[in-house]
């Protein structure tokens, strides 16, 4: 595919627009979903079904004054929200929505997404440290130890899949599962019988990486007020908020591409972008459902889960797959 400069710009703008639109409207979806679960209507005043609520919230956040607390590290304080949002948007560039809809396909797409995902932890650390708030620092320490310990099993699981397919290109990864749901990585194959477990590990890690409940220890509001963004108001808070939802979309997209066959139809018919969107929004609905059902875990429970259960199992899966790949 030859890529002129104009094409590239258009593609990147579309990717950014998709990320921003998703971030805004997932907030609406989350609040409506929470309303359903809690037997209340949720936002329903502004526009039909409350659909004008996200722009209203955006205007409100943008018109508020940005307050920088005294004694805060100004540079870090200002950089952190941008650092939370920018990598999330950048990751969209490499995600293939279908065989032809992709901003820029590259052969190390998986690696790039994980590199950008790691920067999210940096943003949280900057925010907590820079705002000079004890709650913020505690939350930042929690969030960073959390993202470090959950990146390990996540990456090991991804390595297993990369080993099976022999490519790090997201497009190739999705294409290798086309044809029908029996080809998906979700289901056990001859060379890797533990794939459903790997999917579960990856799903839990995605929840933890995106700081979603029940792993939202970075913003555990009953203990740490609002966690790392306690001191943020205005659009600084808004960017953190949008970054979180953009990360959720990326997490869901990555899960879809790695395990659920990307844009392939479960029965091999009419593959296309609609299947991809259907799959990611189903996953996001599951995220929302989980958030409004479960209480929060403890920080040591969370770290124990990663180091004592998820990492050994994913390592075992890696070794098993490596061995079986040699045999078959």
């Amino acid at each position, binding site marked *: 595919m030859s890529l002129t400069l104009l094409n590239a710009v258009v593609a990147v703008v579309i990717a950014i627009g998709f990320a921003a639109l998703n971030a805004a409207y997932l907030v609406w979806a989350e609040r409506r979903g929470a309303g359903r679960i*809690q*037997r209340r209507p949720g936002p329903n005043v502004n526009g039909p079904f409350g659909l004008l609520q996200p722009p209203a919230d955006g205007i409100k956040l943008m018109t508020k004054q940005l307050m920088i607390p005294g004694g805060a590290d100004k540079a870090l304080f200002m950089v952190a929200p941008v650092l939370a949002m920018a990598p999330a948007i950048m990751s969209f560039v490499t995600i293939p929505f279908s065989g032809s809809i992709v901003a820029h396909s590259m052969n190390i797409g998986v690696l790039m997404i994980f590199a950008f995902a790691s920067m999210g932890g940096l943003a949280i650390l900057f925010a907590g440290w820079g705002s000079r708030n004890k*709650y913020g620092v*505690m939350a930042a*320490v929690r969030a960073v130890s959390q993202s470090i310990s959950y990146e390990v099993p996540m990456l090991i699981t991804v390595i297993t899949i990369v080993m099976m397919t022999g490519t790090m290109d997201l497009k190739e990864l999705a294409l290798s599962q086309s044809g029908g749901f029996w080809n998906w990585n979700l289901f056990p194959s001859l060379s890797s019988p533990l794939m459903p477990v790997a999917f579960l590990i990856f799903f839990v890690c995605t929840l933890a990486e995106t700081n979603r409940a029940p792993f939202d220890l970075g913003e555990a509001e*009953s203990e740490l007020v609002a966690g790392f963004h306690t001191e943020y108001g205005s659009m600084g808070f808004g960017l953190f908020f949008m970054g979180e939802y953009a990360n959720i979309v990326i997490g869901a997209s990555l899960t879809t591409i790695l395990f659920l066959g990307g844009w392939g139809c479960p029965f091999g018919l009419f593959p296309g972008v609609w299947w991809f969107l259907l799959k990611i929004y189903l996953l996001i609905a599951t995220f929302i459902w989980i958030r409004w*059902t*479960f209480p*929060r875990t403890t920080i040591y429970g969370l770290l124990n889960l990663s180091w004592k259960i998820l990492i050994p199992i994913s390592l075992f899966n890696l070794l098993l797959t490596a061995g079986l790949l040699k045999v078959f």
Partner: protein
Amino acid sequence: MSAPIHIRPDETFTLNVGPQHPATHGVLRVKMEMDGEYIVKAETVLGYIHRMHELMGENRTYPQVLPNLSRLDYLGALGYTHGHVLAVERAAGIEVPERAEYIRAITVELNRVASHLFWFGAFVMDLGGFTPLMYAIEDREYILDMLEAITGSRLTYCYYRFGGLYNDIDDDFIAAAKAFIPRLRKSLKKYDGLVTGNIIFRKRLEGIGPISAEMCRKYGATGPVARGSGIDFDVRKNEPYSVYPEFDFDIPVYHECDSLARYKVRMDEMEQSLRIIEQGLEKLPDGPIMPKKKPKLIKPPKGDYYQAVETARGSFGIRIVSDGTKNAYRFKLRSPTYSNMHMFDEACEGMMIMDALAMMGSLDLVIPEIDR
């Protein structure tokens, strides 16, 4: 994770939890000496919402103090006004008609259920689960509607009078209460499935926040907190008052001493309260709700009077020292949460802040009642 740790004092920092903090549900302030996530030492600071109810009790006549009592605890207000009217009735020797006593018992128990329901929701919200709060509030709404219909207010009731009640209950109330009992029983089963069986919930509470029976005795803790530590004490059984001896109900006691035990005590207590309401509605006698003979001006004879009642939070006591005038000479309130809360300082040492605040939730604190 609750093993005590020893660190040098120069490695710690001070964290102010409160007076404005989402976990304290009010204006309680806890000064915590922290080592990272661990609490080295905690000190609760009170007085942010002190309103001098005891002094008001000495400056006003007995009926004038009546509304004050429901401002102590906005979640279980009827229990506190019940204590006050019982104390004054005992002091002034006023007879209460049987129907009034039954209605008092029914309404107090309804209020206890409402208080426990709200605590259940707020406690699970402390642990990070938001949905149970909405479910609990929906059930509590039925109780508030019922009580509003007969008392005229939704939270700070002034329903009891010396000698009886302000207002008789009607058939609508009885029908609503009878319909509510099976409804709540169904809900309690649902809560059990949604919350009690949840693995994250159990892991956060089992064995966390231990409060021993000795500690309860040392600080004078009562109510569900003491009963979760294996102390079988309930004023309704041990020092019976009103018509409670006529009812058949159990006192749930758990010996695990952890946050989960306190949770279970309250959930079981709701079922026992429903039993009392059921029996009360069945046995409800006909008759007047105010005595025929009642002194116009209440002037208890000289003496020292004490009355304890079991409120939703524990044993609430009123001491009235009368010098024979229309005002009390001394008006002392013994509020249960005040004693329950002071265990927090000692119990949370060496705990992580998450577990400590989960334990604080399990103590069921209502701050205006601590400060009075």
